[in-house]
């Protein structure tokens, strides 16, 4: 059953259209993540679902009910803000119970619900404290608790972890995942953090300029991006792109020359072969699909410009010529120093092909 359905949503601020026709279906219990560069409209879209922004055109349905023009409180949603947005003058218990109080629930029932939510979030000992007496992680848990007690059909998270430090972010990420499993609720989550998107999502929605670029499971987006934008956006470090000239075609692949890499006759797999043969295409290679170990593929000679050593892996930023830069993820490259020249091997089956407009071939 579809819990949340967005149909051709549009949003304009004055003459500027920031959401330009977004449609989406989320089934009950699904974890949807909106990602995209800043300004892509992901937060606006979430706020439209919450009812904090009016919808210019289109329809929002939650649980088969049209809520496009319904008050935020009556939509069956709860929202967790990036800045927590706790009521600073109220205790943790009052913060969590405020929504229930507004809905007219009696004090005893309210407290029971608050206690239950607090227990599941390890907040029981802090119920009498004020937000300023809590750490960042605890504050965010209170904000989540405030959402839980409302028993919403859809949880909305607006970059909830971006104010936390790295260690806490990992912890809270796992906590949100656990919460999703325990509650089985539909969640919509906005982030610009790829790791959050990849680890939490059942379905990722990649947005750009108010339009959906691709919707899919995390690994689907990684392994099978629809276009240059998604290919470049998902995956870190970013995919390397080079122009290529098509010299031939076979049943399911092109044969291309890649002048920037000084390679010719490289077979590049295509998802579907177009009717007519394009003359030039863009090819994409992920940094993790380049290796320093001799393989069966093609090799290019590069000069190391900089090394970023993360411990388990190292990111090599190298150049072939003045204009051509390439990034590679290397497993075992501790000795490589800037200025060193060496061979990088490319496995052709891992190369993506895109047409001139950026769509995947």
């Amino acid at each position, binding site marked *: 059953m579809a819990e949340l359905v967005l149909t051709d949503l549009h949003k304009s601020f004055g003459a500027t259209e920031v959401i330009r026709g977004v449609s989406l279906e989320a089934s009950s219990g699904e974890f949807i993540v909106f990602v995209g560069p800043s300004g892509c409209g992901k937060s606006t879209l979430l706020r439209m679902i*919450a*009812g*904090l922004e009016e919808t210019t055109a289109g329809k929002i349905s939650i649980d088969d009910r049209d809520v496009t023009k319904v*008050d*935020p*409180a*009556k939509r069956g*949603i*709860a*929202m967790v*803000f*990036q*800045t*927590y*947005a*706790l*009521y*600073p*003058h109220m205790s943790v218990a009052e913060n969590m119970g*405020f*929504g229930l109080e*507004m*809905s007219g629930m009696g004090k005893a029932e309210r407290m029971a619900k608050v206690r239950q939510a607090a227990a599941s979030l390890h907040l029981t000992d802090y119920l009498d404290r*004020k*937000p*300023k*007496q*809590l750490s*960042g992680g605890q*504050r965010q848990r209170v904000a989540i608790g*405030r959402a839980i007690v*409302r028993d919403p059909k859809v949880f909305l998270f607006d970059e909830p972890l971006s*104010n936390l430090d790295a260690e806490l972010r990992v912890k809270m990420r796992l906590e949100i995942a656990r919460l999703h499993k325990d509650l089985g609720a539909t969640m919509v989550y906005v982030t610009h953090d790829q790791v959050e998107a990849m680890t939490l999502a059942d379905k990722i929605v990649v947005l750009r300029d108010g339009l959906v670029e691709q919707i899919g499971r995390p690994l689907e987006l990684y392994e099978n991006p629809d276009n240059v934008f998604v290919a470049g956006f998902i995956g870190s470090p970013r995919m390397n792109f080079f122009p290529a000239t098509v010299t031939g075609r076979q049943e399911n692949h092109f044969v291309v020359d890649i002048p920037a890499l000084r390679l010719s006759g490289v077979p590049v797999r295509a998802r579907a072969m177009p009717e007519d043969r394009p003359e030039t295409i863009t090819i994409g290679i992920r940094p993790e699909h380049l290796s320093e170990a001799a393989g069966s593929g093609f090799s290019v000679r590069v000069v190391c410009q900089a090394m970023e050593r993360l411990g388990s892996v190292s990111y090599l930023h190298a150049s072939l010529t003045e204009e051509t830069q390439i990034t590679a993820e290397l497993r075992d490259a501790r000795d490589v120093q800037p200025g060193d020249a060496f061979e990088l091997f490319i496995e052709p089956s891992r190369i993506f092909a895109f047409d001139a407009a950026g769509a995947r071939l």
Partner: protein
Amino acid sequence: MRRSLSLNALLGASLAFFTALIGLPFWWVVSGSIKLPQEIISRLPTMFPQSFTPQHYQKLFQASDYPVYLINSLIVATSTTLVTLVLAIPAAYAFFRLTFPARGVLYRSILLAYAFPSIVVLIPLFGLFAKVGLVDRLPSLIIVNVAFALPFSIWMLRSFLAGVPKEIEEAAVIDGASTLKILRRIMIPLIAPGIAAVGIYAFVTAWTEYVFASVLILSDAKRTLPVGFSGIIGQYQIDWGLLLAGATVAIVPVVALFALIGRGFVSGLTEGAVK
């Protein structure tokens, strides 16, 4: 941050200068009010009282109308403060949150109230109050004082409201709170420092107001402190001891108010809400 010795000395000196500038007159008034008359007017002023007498205070409270004026002033100033707050808080929130036609124009034009010197509106107001029978009654002063305190109060409170993070209000909207509930349960507690500031402003304005109080009030029993007190001092000779004792007592409510709600000035009330 480490400051150099000379900068520290400079800061200390200027601090001492301003403390003396503000504090010395207060000290002069308060210490003078307990000196014997001959010490007050002695050729060599004494910084610390050499004598002590409660006689000026006894005279003030037993042989003058001062207590009546004091009570009148307390009534006028307290009512002014309360009415100002009751009107300014919803008005400021309306200007801040609600959208209605000509909001911007109205908001800017309320400060026009301060474009006219009070003396200009005095005569028309007197005529107006005479028609409705408010002359020589304390409510007339309350109305005038509220009218003059309101525009500034609305301006001030609106900027305090604007300082409350938007997400807190949005969270309350999602929690199902109505506009009035948001104002009462969320916004008012969060702008307490602003309310305290506006309250003190309204109180002090009303407490020291002279021009309207001297014209709109005719009978002696209805006078407020500034006007009544100026009559006590004497037309032909000045009773310095009485003057200083009266001035000392007049300071007390204002100081008490600061002590009482001064805590509201403490900022950082929204600490812990966001971040």
